[in-house]
């Protein structure tokens, strides 16, 4: 069975499967080596690391809920990178998206069902506006969007904090947090015993929309061509200025919406005091998912799985919290190592190419 299946695959996908598995195995061995160094119960720790996320229904829920914002961020970065726009503003857009969702949640009395949708839309638009600023600066003055977006993240963070701090802060909260959102604004939890919320439908919907957009619409086509060769796109009569603008707007829109989904799905009030720790993970997810909207959620789930496993390990074994970021970093870097096993691949190719004669 497996053999037959393998035969059908092209050299590339066969090789990809092999490379991926070997990379994971090596990462595991290194993780195991490290854990062996620091733990008295290494097998127990490993078990938690790799089986923890599927050990309980609740834990599977943790993987899913973690993957939701990662997918939004991954989509956001994928769209912008596909247009060859190195806008790093997803994290700023995510933060402002969360802030705007909180403000809409708190200030607009709207019925259940409509309320979160309005909040999501506003959040998306504001997120999109934020990532559009580097685009506009680039179009008007040809200044690098990479730099201006990195800088804008800090601006968005502080602006968001200022708004919450000075207009929506709940003085009875023991820390910086907004008033509680009305029930109408929340994205309800779907499955009892988990925190999987309505946002999962929204994220699935957005994955499909973005996939359709990139692969099947004229705008997506124009975007991809601009990303692959801007001169060619211009020469073909594609308005690359429009592409530069809308690709970054959509990128920010997705991140902003992701922020809103996270805030309305996982919290009952705005509680971010700093940039969320996963705000920069969009690049990781996008690169692992090869900027393909269909692979992005897979990459997000993979990353979420690693993270939930690591958390489970730190709670249930004697492996410390820091060890986890080391192992995580290593797994990511190893999975992304493309040339790894290159020689083996070449052998496979030669065999394939010369076997037809």
């Amino acid at each position, binding site marked *: 069975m497996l053999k037959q299946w393998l035969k059908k695959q092209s*050299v590339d996908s066969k090789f990809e499967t092999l490379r991926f598995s070997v990379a994971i195995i090596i990462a595991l061995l290194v993780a195991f080596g490290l854990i062996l160094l620091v733990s008295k119960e290494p097998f127990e720790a490993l078990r938690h690391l790799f089986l923890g996320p599927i050990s309980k229904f609740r834990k599977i829920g943790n993987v899913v809920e973690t993957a939701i914002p990662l997918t939004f961020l991954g989509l956001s970065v994928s769209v912008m990178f596909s247009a060859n726009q190195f806008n790093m503003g997803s994290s700023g857009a995510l933060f402002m998206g969360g802030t705007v969702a909180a403000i809409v949640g708190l200030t607009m009395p709207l019925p259940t069902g409509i309320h979160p949708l309005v909040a999501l839309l506003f959040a998306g638009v504001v997120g999109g506006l934020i990532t559009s600023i580097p685009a506009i600066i680039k179009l008007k003055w040809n200044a690098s969007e990479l730099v201006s977006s990195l800088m804008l993240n800090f601006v968005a963070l502080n602006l968001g904090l200022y708004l919450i701090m000075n207009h929506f802060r709940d003085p009875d909260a023991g820390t910086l947090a907004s008033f509680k959102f009305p029930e109408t604004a929340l994205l309800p939890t779907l499955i009892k015993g988990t925190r999987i919320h309505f946002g999962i439908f929204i994220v699935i919907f957005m994955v499909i929309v973005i996939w359709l957009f990139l692969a*099947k619409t*004229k705008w997506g086509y*124009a975007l991809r*061509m601009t990303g692959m*060769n801007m001169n060619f796109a211009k*020469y073909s*009569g594609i308005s690359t200025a429009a592409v530069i603008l809308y690709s970054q707007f959509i990128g920010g829109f997705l991140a902003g919406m992701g922020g809103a989904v996270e805030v309305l799905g996982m919290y009952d009030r705005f509680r971010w005091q700093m940039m969320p720790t996963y705000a920069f993970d969009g690049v990781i997810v996008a690169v692992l998912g090869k900027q393909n909207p269909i692979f992005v959620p897979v990459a997000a789930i993979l990353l979420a799985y690693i993270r939930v496993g690591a958390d489970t390990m730190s709670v249930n074994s004697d492996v410390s919290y820091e060890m986890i970021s080391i192992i995580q970093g290593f797994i990511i870097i190893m999975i992304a190592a493309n040339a790894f096993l290159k020689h083996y691949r070449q052998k496979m*190719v030669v065999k394939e*190419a010369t076997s037809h004669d």
Partner: protein
Amino acid sequence: MQEIVKMVDILKVYPNGIVANQKVNFSIVEGEIHALVGENGAGKSTLMKILFGIEQPTEGSIVLNGQEVKFANPQEAIKHGIGMVHQHFMLVPSLTVAENVVLGDEPKKAGGLLDIQKAIADTAEIAKRYHFEIDPKAKVEDCSVGTKQKIEILKALFHGAKVLILDEPTAVLTPQETSELFKELMLLKDKGHTIVFISHKLNEVKEITDRITIMRAGKDVGTYDTDKVSKEDISNLMVGREIVWDLDKSKAEPKDVAVQVAQVTLVNEHKRKLLDDVNFSIRRGEILGVVGVEGNGQRELVDVLTGLQQASLGTITINGENIQRYSIRKIRDLGLSHIPEDRMTLGVAEYASIEENLMSIYFDKPEFLNGPFLKLKQINAWAKEKVVDYRVKTGSEKTPVKMLSGGNIQKVVVAREFSNNPKVIIADQPTRGIDVGAAQFIHKKLIELRDKGCAVLLVSADLTEVMDLSDSLLVFYNGKIVAYFEDASVLTETELGLYMLGLKAQSEAEIRRCVYA
């Protein structure tokens, strides 16, 4: 004579599975000029890249002066006295000529410091020895294409090349530059260098080389003494079929004016006038050729006509509409098609598939759209048809263009630009660096379109091509039109050369004839 290089049973499989060389045997003897010819994608460049250490053979061996060698990288090949001038320039634009020449083997002062004075002196010295006129202190980005070609050769010589591989060195040169290059090659030969010369121009091959090796589809089909084979023999061996040589072209019947260029001037940021008060018309049903030594305004002319640049002064009207401030899209909507000079930077997105490249100017036409959604099935069927019509050699229309050879990439570009029922075609070097068969195919298509009433502007550095194909002809020098020939068929290359080099110019009134009302 002694055999200096021998490549035995070379097999090369690229990582994408393409078998570029299949058991190729190739040998050259000391002091000869040896041609390597073959259709696009025959595997010439690959074979030479292997000899130069850029690619490693999957199987097979290289014997140099009787000793087997293995080159893991160009450095080792260079050490063994092999030099290569690549078809696409391998220069660093922001560095000076001298810096480019010495790069990789720089003269040093104590402590790893670059001895720039010595670099300049060495460059000047070697240029003088081989009679190259070149300013070692000039920045490469300011140099003309011909000069860049010379820099490439100087580079190889500086690194001590005894065997010099030239991959299509003349594709971008004017006849004068080519003959200058040939003089230099003969001089090199006299000084004991051995030269491998790759070209699609069989005239040149006949003119300068001693022996010829012909490749077809990754295999070598034989080595011949040049004077023992005719051009026809060579091309038949190359393609494996008979090629009909004559261009079946009737006399043009020009109709009304399609494009009117009036007082167009273009200034660059260095305040140079790249186009200087240019006036002319292109009429329906004619092919108007444009010639000039590279860098005399032809490229800029194409740019302003196609909307890639805005003219600083003057007006251009296409089909009666003034295109000033028109976007490229709007200009194309007037029925303009454009075969760009540089297919890799403008003509295609190399990582995109053939199909995606074919549809870049059609994707938002109503017949391919369903709301904002592309009709992917229709597009695919259409692309398949184009691949067949234009004889693009490929396994599938989904193959990335990057995997095609140069000639086939050009066919993709042409297929796209010609399928639009164009009213005006700007064809800039439409057959540069592609083989005879493919070139002929494109020429026929151009004439066909002309006969259907299309206005064609043909810019080419290949004088044979311009003279064969054009009905009338403009000569550019220094951003100005210096001559207009209503009937291109009566001209000779030598005469054209005089105008191109600025040695001769027509009177104002004679030039004015190219403006039709």
